């Protein structure tokens, strides 16, 4: 009797196998006539192969992961700068980026966002450009020129009407923003703005100019540049600077597909599970870009250990390695003297349960077969 596709699905449902393997069996048997006995044979073969490929109990997966990421890491370029898109946005890649990821830095050295747009915006270049202008932070230098008049002791700002129109801001809005931020009066005559510092001194005057130059008049603060790039049939925005929380609110932006390379920002805005995904994605992308392929399972383990406590923790002295229970294990890693001294002052006890401690004292380590002990039950 030949089984139908539905029969096969039913047989697979209750099995203790990962969904991807069940799917592979299902797809492999599509259109192939199999009998009930043959299916049972296939399933038991697959199940035993799967069981065989599992990590053995007591295996040191962490060490394997460290080696598997560390060795390809030696082949990575020390200093690379890659220009994504229109040779304008600079992103840190290679080894420095990988270090940045495992160090769980609060702000990466080159924060960038990838903003995808809503259906109706994504295919229209003009609408995409409008969103880009709205997001990009505009300073006074984008909108016109700024000069000082030493005879009159004032600052003269001349606004460029075409720049104002392009960035959708009026001279009145610029004047009111300046007034709000500096607390000074702004004399506006069409596109000419004149401001007088509180005290008529050169110092005050120059400080005022510097302050005005730094002000973000429109857009999201910290987004220095926005580049539009067409990928497939969709326009995508790439930014220099990152602020997903603010950019999500913009009209036309698809908040469900926005991305940033700032992992701790993802942790804050989208939660720890999203941060874990971000670590996996960023690390695989960094390695792949260098032509290295590391099994995701190793990276998943790193991401898991960095996020177990509900917050991002670095792999290192101030994170995973620094929180080990054993004094000797911590001392073996970094700042040896401090750990031993602190432990001596507190009177810490080392249970010698981990690997490092037992290597130090010269005992068999509790890994693999070393972790198995016999227990006699009295009857």
């Amino acid at each position, binding site marked *: 009797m030949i089984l139908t596709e539905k029969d096969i699905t039913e047989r697979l449902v209750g099995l203790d196998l*990962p969904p991807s393997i069940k799917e592979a069996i299902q797809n492999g048997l599509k259109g192939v006539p199999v009998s009930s006995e043959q299916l049972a044979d296939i399933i038991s073969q697959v199940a035993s192969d799967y069981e065989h490929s599992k990590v053995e109990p007591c295996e040191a997966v962490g060490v394997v992961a460290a080696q598997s990421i560390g060795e390809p890491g030696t082949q990575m370029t020390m200093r690379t700068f890659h220009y994504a898109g229109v040779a304008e946005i600079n992103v840190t890649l290679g080894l420095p980026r990988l270090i940045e990821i495992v160090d769980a830095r609060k702000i990466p050295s080159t924060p960038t966002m990838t903003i995808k747009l809503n259906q109706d915006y994504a295919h229209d270049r003009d609408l995409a450009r409008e969103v880009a202008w709205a997001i990009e932070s505009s300073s006074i230098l984008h909108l016109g020129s700024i000069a000082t008049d030493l005879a009159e002791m004032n600052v003269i700002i001349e606004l460029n009407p075409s720049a104002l129109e392009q960035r959708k801001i009026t001279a009145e809005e610029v004047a009111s923003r300046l007034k709000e931020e500096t607390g000074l009066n702004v004399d506006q005559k069409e596109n000419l703005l004149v401001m007088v510092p509180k005290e008529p001194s050169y110092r005050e005057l120059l400080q005022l100019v510097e302050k005005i130059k730094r002000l973000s008049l429109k857009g999201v603060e910290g987004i220095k540049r926005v580049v539009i790039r067409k990928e497939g049939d969709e326009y995508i925005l790439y930014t220099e600077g990152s602020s997903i929380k603010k950019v999500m609110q913009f*009209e036309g932006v698809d*908040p469900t597909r926005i991305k940033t390379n700032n992992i701790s920002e993802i942790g804050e*805005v*989208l*939660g720890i599970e*999203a941060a874990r995904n971000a670590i996996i994605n960023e690390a695989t992308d960094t390695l792949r870009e260098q032509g290295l392929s590391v099994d995701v399972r190793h990276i*998943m383990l790193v991401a898991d250990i960095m996020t177990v406590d*509900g917050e991002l923790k670095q792999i290192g002295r101030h994170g995973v390695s620094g929180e080990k229970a054993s004094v000797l294990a911590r001392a073996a890693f970094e700042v040896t003297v401090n750990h031993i001294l602190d432990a001596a002052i507190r009177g810490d006890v080392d249970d010698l349960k981990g690997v490092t401690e037992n290597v130090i004292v010269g005992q068999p380590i509790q890994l693999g077969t070393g972790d198995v002990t016999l227990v006699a039950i009295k009857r």
Partner: protein
Amino acid sequence: MTKFAVKDHEMVPEHVLLTPEESAEVLKGFNIVAPQLPKIHVNDPAAKEIEAKVGDVIKVIRKSATAKHSIFYRLVID
């Protein structure tokens, strides 16, 4: 302003709040006590959205590159 829920983001896996009975069963299945589970903060955006309280257990259904989807549990902490 566009309406946005954290759970709609493509990087956020599905979070399910377990009832006390369900979480007791999970703990029994692994033969552990609740503090041995991985943690999630109460003010984590994804935990907040499902109104989790301290002491609850959240079941996370992750999309996995190797197993298609895998299940993970986190204990809600302060």
